[in-house]
């Protein structure tokens, strides 16, 4: 199992955002998290990335026990939240180079990722501040490709993308799956997301159920 949560409780701002969540995700799945705003989808993704402490239960992600050590999982997962994690004063290429230097990726890795996300033309020399919301999203996704994360955790990845961008994203996620990665994403665009996902989980009231 890539992700295994059993009776997991995560407290966020004195509120149990996850209140006994139990579910499992296998390698190579593309799992859709659906549910209303405030249901705990973002908390679940951040807990999987080791960013939030788990108050109760047992949780394993990529063989890392999140109860005893939630730090060692971090360099194995890629998290794309509502923010893009980019530096707006730098160009697309400079952002990519920064992240590649941090994780020891090669220039070829950067070029490949930028090509996949359609960023290798004139956009590469454009400052991120001058990009559209969709272009910023593509740039953020390119950083995940460079990192070759084993588990992709995406919060509303389609947000801000045009139709072409959404199609490209779906293609990228399927390609990541074929390359052995597992994808977990939260989305409100249910029709598109269901076409993409191999399985759906519903998050509501801090609990997780099969859809």
């Amino acid at each position: 199992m890539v992700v295994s949560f059993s009776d997991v409780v995560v407290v966020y701002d004195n509120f149990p955002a996850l209140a006994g969540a139990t579910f499992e995700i296998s390698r190579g799945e593309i799992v859709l998290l659906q549910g209303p705003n405030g249901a705990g989808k973002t908390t679940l993704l951040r807990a999987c990335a080791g960013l939030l402490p788990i108050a109760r239960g047992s949780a394993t992600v990529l063989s890392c026990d999140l109860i005893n050590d939630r730090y060692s999982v971090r360099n194995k997962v890629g998290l794309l939240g509502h923010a893009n994690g980019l530096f707006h004063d730098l160009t697309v290429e400079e952002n990519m180079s920064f992240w590649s230097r941090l994780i020891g990726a090669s220039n070829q890795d950067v070029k490949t990722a930028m090509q996949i996300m359609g960023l290798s033309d004139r956009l590469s020399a454009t400052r991120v501040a001058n990009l559209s919301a969709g272009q910023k999203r593509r740039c953020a996704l390119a950083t995940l490709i460079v990192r070759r994360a084993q588990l992709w955790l995406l919060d509303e990845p389609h947000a801000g993308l045009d139709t072409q961008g959404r199609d490209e994203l779906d293609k990228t996620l399927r390609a990541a799956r074929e390359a052995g990665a597992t994808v977990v994403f939260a989305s409100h665009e249910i029709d598109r997301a269901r076409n993409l996902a191999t399985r759906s989980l519903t998050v509501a009231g801090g609990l997780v159920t099969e859809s």
Partner: protein
Amino acid sequence: MKSDSSTRVSRGKVVTAVFLKDIQIELRSRVVTNQVLPFAGLVMVMFAFALDNDDVLQRVAGGLVWLATLFSLFIIVQRSFAIDTADGALDSLRVAGIDLSAVFFGKAIALAIKLIALEIVLICGAVLLYRVDVSATGLVLLVTCVICATSGLAFVGTLYGGLTAGAKGRETLLPLLLLPVVAPVLIAATRATEAAFGSGGAQTSEGWAWIGLLAVFAAVFGVGGSLAFGSLIDE
């Protein structure tokens, strides 16, 4: 692609990457040169207007230089972390699983470079505006003082910048937390600079004891900051 996500890079490479990124952003945005430097210059001029007495100005020139530096420090530190928090890059750094103490040193070195550039201008401003003299031996003391004081300010600024990065009201919180902590740097750097300037008949040799205090402060916050930064960012 050759690398995978579990590849670990050396701490030195992370320090270099973070340092270059911060400097590159400064060169692109020019916040220090176009906003902080004029602000610090104005503070120096306002001091000159307020005190309006050559003798007094020469005597307190060292303190005025370091006060202007401290005021500017708040702006530079807030800017340094604003670029990381504006689009969630700090979160991405956490998830990248890299050594956060290396991020601390990278940001502190970049901050120190910006501060040193600022201090050079401020000291030149003091020489011109307040008519202070610096002897050859005084210059050695002054350079040592700038290096030691700046190191301490950069370490403590980065530590507290990280502490307040995600906090509400961080613009006012940072000065409130930072000012009491940097008081020893202000006192020691002022005394050492006064000795370098020969203010009020002070001897250059009197300044070296204060350099020791500045070095200890820098060492304590360098070590302490590298140990605490990761936990502070994480919480």
